[in-house]
């Protein structure tokens, strides 16, 4: 108990946690952002090109079965150590939920609604931006939430490839058998994940078009 209190009240450690929390958020959000930039357009493309949907989903699904720590490890020979391999691995991991939900969301838009849009003289691009995307926002946002929460978790592993983040402190805690350090790294990262889950859940409700809200 004493050890926990001295560790947590040490200003050097507090400083370090703050620094690592920033690193952690940076790397998680960059990975998710990149994944959104790639997966949403790709998901839309797959709904226009059904033939490719199955193979692409299978490949992305297979990536997901590789244990995350192994995926990170594979990146070392390719990209060295530091933030690059971490970002690449986290990005690959973030892809699947967003891609799958974008594809499923757009495909689930009612045919009749599309027909109506077309009947009003909408071009395909207008249909996409004015009908299909708004109607599937909720599902897409759900994918983004799932990705973000799991990426914040997996980003703790980035410490293994020298990319920093809160995992560093947890690992030092393991190495030094220090409960204080484990908690000092573990609690903020848990809070971060819970907070992201909560906030993105809110956002999910907020972006649902009024007519679709339950």
């Amino acid at each position, binding site marked *: 108990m004493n050890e926990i209190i001295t560790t947590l009240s040490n200003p050097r450690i507090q400083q370090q946690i703050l620094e690592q929390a920033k690193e952690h958020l940076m790397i998680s959000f960059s990975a998710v952002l990149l994944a959104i930039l790639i997966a949403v357009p790709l998901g839309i493309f797959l709904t226009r090109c059904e033939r490719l949907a199955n193979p692409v989903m299978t490949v992305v699904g297979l990536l997901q079965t590789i244990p995350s*720590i*192994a995926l990170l490890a594979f990146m070392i020979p390719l990209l060295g150590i530091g933030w690059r391999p971490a970002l690449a691995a986290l990005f690959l991991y973030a892809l699947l939920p967003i891609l799958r939900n974008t594809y499923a969301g757009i495909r689930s838009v009612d045919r009749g609604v599309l027909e109506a849009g077309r009947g009003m003289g909408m071009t395909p691009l207008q249909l996409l931006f004015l009908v299909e995307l708004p109607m599937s926002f909720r599902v897409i946002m759900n994918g983004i939430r799932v990705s973000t929460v799991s990426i914040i978790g997996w980003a703790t592993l980035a410490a293994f490839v020298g990319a920093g983040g809160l995992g560093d402190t947890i690992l030092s805690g393991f190495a030094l058998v220090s409960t204080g350090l484990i908690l000092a790294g573990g609690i903020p990262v848990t809070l971060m994940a819970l907070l992201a889950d909560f906030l993105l859940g809110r956002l999910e409700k907020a972006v649902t078009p009024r007519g679709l809200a339950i």
Partner: protein
Amino acid sequence: MEFLNYVVHNAPTILDLTGEHLQLALMGVLCALLVGVPVGIFISRHPRWVGPVLWITNAIQTIPSLALIGFVMIFLGLSRETGVTVLFLYALMPIIRNTYTGVTAVDSGIIEAARGMGMTSWQILRMVQLPLALAIILVGVRVALVTAVGTASMMSLAGAGGLGELIFAGIDRVNTKMILGGALPAAMLAVLAEVGIGALERKLTPGGLQPTR
């Protein structure tokens, strides 16, 4: 080629660790089944508990694995128990949620019919609700097992062994063959779990619920 050499030379170790890995994952999921199915049934009968129980299991799911290992380690130290406990905690959510969904999704007309035949509520549970919910519960088991097989790679950090031993040792030595030697079997186990339970699902679905071809 070099990798094949490595595998051939270290086959016994890899096999041992694969067995350990599978054992960890199975133990975690088994414990979660023993706890999760009764809890899922319980909350389906006491709706007041649905919110809190699902909220807690969801929150557990959100805890990053490295942090959860650390938290559990504080209580159980470096041991197999720590590994199994962490996997158990992660497996709870899919199993409880799917048991609950499966049991509550049974058509109320069917339950009415069973009651009309004079079944007790225990009989209804055992002979009607659970068989009809089995397919959905198995989906939960599949999700739980695939996650457990994946997360089990981390459990060597908790001193619980498994293929993570090779992966982490490989990272330390920047030895790609070693990393692959741990990661490939782990990935294969995950795919196998997915396919295997998928087959079991089809087999255990009652005849009347089988999709017609």
